[in-house]
C-alpha cells in the first residue's frame, strides 16, 4: 500500500514566493474551505516578481515536458461553478522539457501587469487573482501549485463630487428634504448630511439610514441580483415636527464595503445604495433609495 501511495504522490513539491514577500502588505483572504489566510496585496501596474522552487522528493526524479508559471485573473460565477472565466492570463515558460533531480529555483517576473479589477468575494460571484505554477507531464497529470494574491486599486479624490440633495414626499402627508454631502464616498469616509422636515402629518417613530449592497451577476435572462443590507444606522428617535432638521453623520469604516464595481467584464456589478427609511407608529416604512459610489481612496502621504 505504501508503494501505491507513493506512486500517486507527486514526485516533487512546488512553492511560489514573492520577492518582496516579507515587506509587502498582507491582507486576509477567505478561501473556499472557509479558512482565512493572509495573502500579499498588489495593485494594477505593479510588477509581480518572485520565484518558483521545485523540490523533488528524496530519491525521486521528476520528468516533465516543461515548467511554466501563469498569472490568472478569474471570474467565477456561482451558478456556473467550476467554470472560471479568465480575463487575464499571462504565462512565463520557466524550463524546457527535461528531468529534475534536485531542487531548482526559477525566478519569474510579470512586469507592470494590468490588473484592472479588484479581487472580490461576493454572494454569487468571485473575482480572484492567482499565480499558477505548472509542471507539465506527459502520461501522468501535471503538477500544479497556485498562490492567491489580492488586488486592490486606488482612486484619487474625484474631481467632481456633487452632493445628493432631494425633496421627496407623500402628498399632504410627509415632505422631507435630504442631503448627503457627496455622491462618492471612499471606504473610510463619513457621510454627513441632514434631513429637513418640510411637512409632517404622520407620526413618525424613527428614522434610519441603511447601506445596501446590490450585486448583480450574469446578463439577460440569467441575471441574478442579490441585495444585502450592510448597515442599519438609526438617525432619529421620536416624532419630529415641521421645521426640524436632523443631522446625519455615518462613518463608513466599520462596515465591510468594497468599491462600487460597474459591469466588471460584462459579468457582474456591485453597487451601493443609501436607503433612508422612516417608520411610522403603525410600523409602515417610507423609504427613498439613492445610489452612492464607493471608491478606494489613494492614500496620499
Amino acid at each position, binding site marked *: 500500500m505504501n508503494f501505491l501511495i507513493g506512486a500517486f504522490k507527486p514526485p516533487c513539491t512546488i512553492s511560489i514566493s514573492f520577492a518582496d514577500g516579507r515587506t509587502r502588505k498582507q491582507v486576509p483572504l477567505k478561501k473556499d474551505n472557509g479558512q482565512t489566510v493572509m495573502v500579499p496585496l498588489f495593485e494594477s501596474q505593479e510588477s509581480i516578481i518572485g520565484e518558483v522552487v521545485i523540490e523533488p522528493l528524496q530519491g525521486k526524479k521528476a520528468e516533465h515536458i516543461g515548467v511554466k508559471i501563469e498569472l490568472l485573473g478569474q471570474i467565477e460565477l456561482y451558478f456556473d461553478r467550476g467554470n472560471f472565466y479568465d480575463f487575464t492570463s499571462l504565462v512565463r515558460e520557466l524550463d524546457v522539457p527535461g528531468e529534475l533531480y534536485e531542487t531548482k529555483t526559477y525566478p519569474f517576473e510579470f512586469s507592470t501587469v494590468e490588473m484592472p479589477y479588484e479581487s472580490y468575494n461576493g454572494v454569487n460571484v468571485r473575482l480572484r487573482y492567482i499565480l499558477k505554477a505548472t509542471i507539465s507531464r506527459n502520461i501522468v497529470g501535471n503538477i500544479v501549485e497556485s498562490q492567491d494574491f489580492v488586488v486592490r486599486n486606488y482612486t484619487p479624490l474625484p474631481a467632481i463630487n456633487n452632493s445628493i440633495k432631494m425633496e421627496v414626499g407623500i402628498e399632504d402627508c410627509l415632505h422631507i428634504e435630504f442631503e448627503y454631502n457627496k455622491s462618492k464616498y471612499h471606504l473610510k469616509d463619513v457621510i454627513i448630511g441632514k434631513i429637513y422636515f418640510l411637512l409632517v402629518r404622520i407620526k413618525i417613530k*424613527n428614522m434610519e439610514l441603511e447601506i445596501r449592497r446590490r450585486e448583480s451577476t450574469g446578463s439577460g435572462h440569467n441575471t441574478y441580483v442579490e441585495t444585502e443590507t450592510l*448597515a*442599519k*444606522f*438609526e*438617525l*432619529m*428617535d*421620536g*416624532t*419630529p*415636527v415641521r421645521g*426640524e*432638521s*436632523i*443631522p446625519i*453623520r455615518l*462613518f463608513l*469604516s*466599520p462596515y465591510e464595503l468594497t468599491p462600487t464595481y460597474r459591469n466588471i467584464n460584462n459579468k457582474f456589478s456591485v453597487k451601493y445604495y443609501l436607503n433612508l427609511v422612516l417608520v411610522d407608529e403603525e410600523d409602515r416604512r417610507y423609504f427613498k433609495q439613492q445610489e452612492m459610489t464607493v471608491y478606494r481612496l489613494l492614500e496620499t502621504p
Partner: protein
Amino acid sequence: MMTGVAEDEDKWLAAGIAGLQQNAFYMHRAMDSNNLRDALKYSAQMLSELRTSKLSPHKYYELYMRAFDELRKLEMFFKEETRRGCSIVDLYELVQHAGNILPRLYLLCTVGSVYIKSKEAPAKDILKDLVEMCRGIQHPLRGLFLRSYLSQLSRDKLPDIGSEYEGDADTITDAVEFVIQNFTEMNKLWVRMQHQGPAREKERREKERSELRDLVGKNLHVLSQIEGIDLDMYKDTVLPRILEQVVNCKDEIAQYYLMDCIIQVFPDEYHLQTLEVLLSAFPQLQASVDIKTVLSQLMERLASYAALSSEVLPEFLQVEAFSKLNSAIGKVIEAQPDMPVVGAVTLCSSLLKFSLHVHPDRLDYADQVLGSCVKQLSGKGKIEDSKATKQIVALLSAPLEKYNNVVTALKLSNYPCVMEYLDNETNKVMATVIIQNIMKNNTHISTADKVEALFELIKGLIKDLDETLHDEVDEDDFKEEQCSVARLIQMLHNEDPEEMFKIICVVKKHILTGGPKRLSFTVPPLVFNSLKLVRRLQGQEENPFGDDESTSTKKIFQLLNQIVEALSSIPAPDLALRLYLQCAEAANDCDLEPVAYEFFTQAYIIYEEEISDSRAQVTAMHLIIGTLQRMHVFGVENRDTLTHKATGYSAKLLKKPDQCRAVYACSHLFWVDDQDNLKDGERVLLCLKRALRIANAAQQMSNATRGSTGSVMLFVEILNKYIYFFEKGNPQISVASIQSLMELITTEMQSDTTTQDPAADAFFASTLRYIQFQKQKGGAISEKYGTIKLSDS
C-alpha cells in the same frame, strides 16, 4: 385600571433596571480588562434601556439616574484610555459607530466631555457638535433627558470668561450660544409633549410636564451662572433670545414657568436695566398665562431690591421703572380682554406695592395706580369675586401699611373711588382696617378736611349703605365696628380750637346720618370730645376769638344740644339724660347759667317724659341730684326751681326705700360745703326728717304685708347723714336727734319683728365705732362728739 398601569410601570422599570445592571456588569468587566471594544458594546446595550417609551417621567428619571452613575464610571474609563494612548479623536469617532441613536448620543456626550477636558480641540467646537447631534432625538422625554445630560456634563466646561476652556476672543458668545440652543431645543421638546397622545390624557400630561420643567429651567440657571455675561450681553443677546423662544412656543405652561424662571434666576440689576425688553414680552404671551402672578413676582423682587440698598434707587429713576411697569400692565390688560378682574387688580396691587417701596415720596404714583385700578373696575359695578375683593383690600391696605399714616392715604384722591367698588361687607372690613391703622399708629387727623375725607372713606361704618342688608348684620360685629368708630371719634384732635370745632361739625354731620342703631355708639364720644374742647376753652381767660368769633363755648353748647337731641330718635333716654347732665356740668364750669339751666331742663323733661322704669328712675334721680349738687352757676331762683323739682321727683319714686334714699340724698342739695350761701340747715333737716318718715312708713308697710318690719338699714343710713351734717356744723342737727335715732335703731334691732340683717348690724356697729373714734380723737371734733352718749349695749 389606574393601579394596573402603575403596577405595569413598576414592572417595566424593574425590568429596565435589571437590564441596565446586567450590561453594566459586563461593561465593568470589560473596563477592568481594558477591553475598549467590549466596554463600548456593553455600554451601548446598557444605554439601550433608556430607549423605553413605557415609563412616566418620574420612573424614567429613576432609570436615567442609574445610567448616569454608570456613565460617570465610563467617562473615567475613557479618560484612562486616552492616557494609555488611545487617541481621543478616534474614541470620539468610535462611539459614533453605534447603530442606535440614543446610546450613541449618550456615549458621544460622555466622550465629548473627556475630549473637552483634553483640550485637543476647542471646547466650543465640541459643544457645538454635541448640541447639534442631539437633534436626532425628537422624542420629548428621551430628548429632554439626553439634553439635560449634556447640560449637566457641560456646565463646568463652558468656554466662559476665566474658565480654563476659554478659547480665543468672543468665546463667551459660543458658551451662550450653546446653552441657549440647548435650552431652545429642550423647550421645544417640552412644549411638544402637550400635543402628543390622546386628548383625554391632557391632565396627566400636564402633570408629567410640570415634573419635567426644571430640566428646561436649569438651562436658564446655567446661563445665569456664566460669569462672562455682562449687562450688555444680557441685554443684546441673552434676554432677547430667551424671550423669543418663550413667546414663540405659544405654550401656556412653558410661558408661565419660564417667565418666572427668568425673573428668579437673573440678577435684579439686570431686570431693572432691561425692564423694557422684559416687559414687552408679557403682552405677547398666551391669554391663559397667569401673567399677574409672574409680573407681581417681578415687581416684588424689584421692590425688595430697592429696599436692599438706597444706592440703587437712582437706577430706578434713571430707567423710569415705574412708568414702564405701569404702561406694561396697561398693555397686558389691553392684550388680554378676558382677564378676570382679579388679575387686573392683582397687577395694580403689586405695582402699588412696588411704587410704595421704591418711590415712597411719590404719592402721585400711588394715586396713579389707584386711578388705573379705578379705570379697570369702572363699569363693572360692585366686585363680587371674592378673590378680587381680597386683592382690592390688599391694594388699599398697602399704602396704610407702608406709611402707617392714614393722612397720607387720604391724600390719594382715587382711594375712595376704589373703595366704591367693594361690596358693603368688605367696605366695612376695609373701613375697620383703616381705623385700626389709625389706632395702632396713633395718627393725628387734625384738620376738618382730612376728617371729612376719612369719614367719606369709612362711610360703610357710618351709615347703612344698603337698607336691605340691615337684618343680617351680626350684633356683635356691629357693636365692635361701632366701638371702633367711637374710638376713632375720640382720637380726633387739634390744638387749634377753631379747627377742632370744624372737625366736630364734620363728625356731627356724618354721624347724624348713621341712623338710630349707630347713634348710641357715636354720640357719646362726640359729646365728650366736644366737652374736651369746652374744657380747654374754659381754662383760657378770654374767648380767644373775640365775641363774634364762630368758636365760642356757647356755640359748642348749641351744637351739643343738637347732638344729644338726636338721641331722642332712638330713643335712648338714659343716655341722653346722662349726656345732658354732663353738658350741664360743663356749662356750669363755663359760668353759662342759661345754658346749664337749659340742659337741666332737657334732662328733667326726659326724666318726666321718657324714663318710666322705676329702677332707671332711681338711677337717674341720683345722677340728677349728684350733678345738681355740684352746680354753682345757678342763681337762687333757678336753683330753687331745680332742687324743688328734684326733691319732688325723689318723693315720688315708686318704692319706699328708693324714696327714702333719694330724699335723704336731696338733703345735700341744700348744704354745699364750699359755698356759704348754700348752707340751709333747716331744709337739710326737713329732708332728713322726711326720709325718716318714709323709712318708718316703709317698715310699717313691710310689717303689714310680710309680718316683719324689715331691715333697719335705712335708719342706719339716715343716721349717717345726721352724723355727716352734724360734723359739718349744721346747727339744725342736734345731739338729741342723733341720740334718739340711735336708740330707735337699737330698739328696732332688738325687736322680735325685725328681720335680722347682718349688713345693717355691721354698718351700725361701724357707725358707732366711728362716733367712738371721733370722741377720742381730741380737739374740736371730740368736743363736739363728747355730748353724744353711746349706750353700753
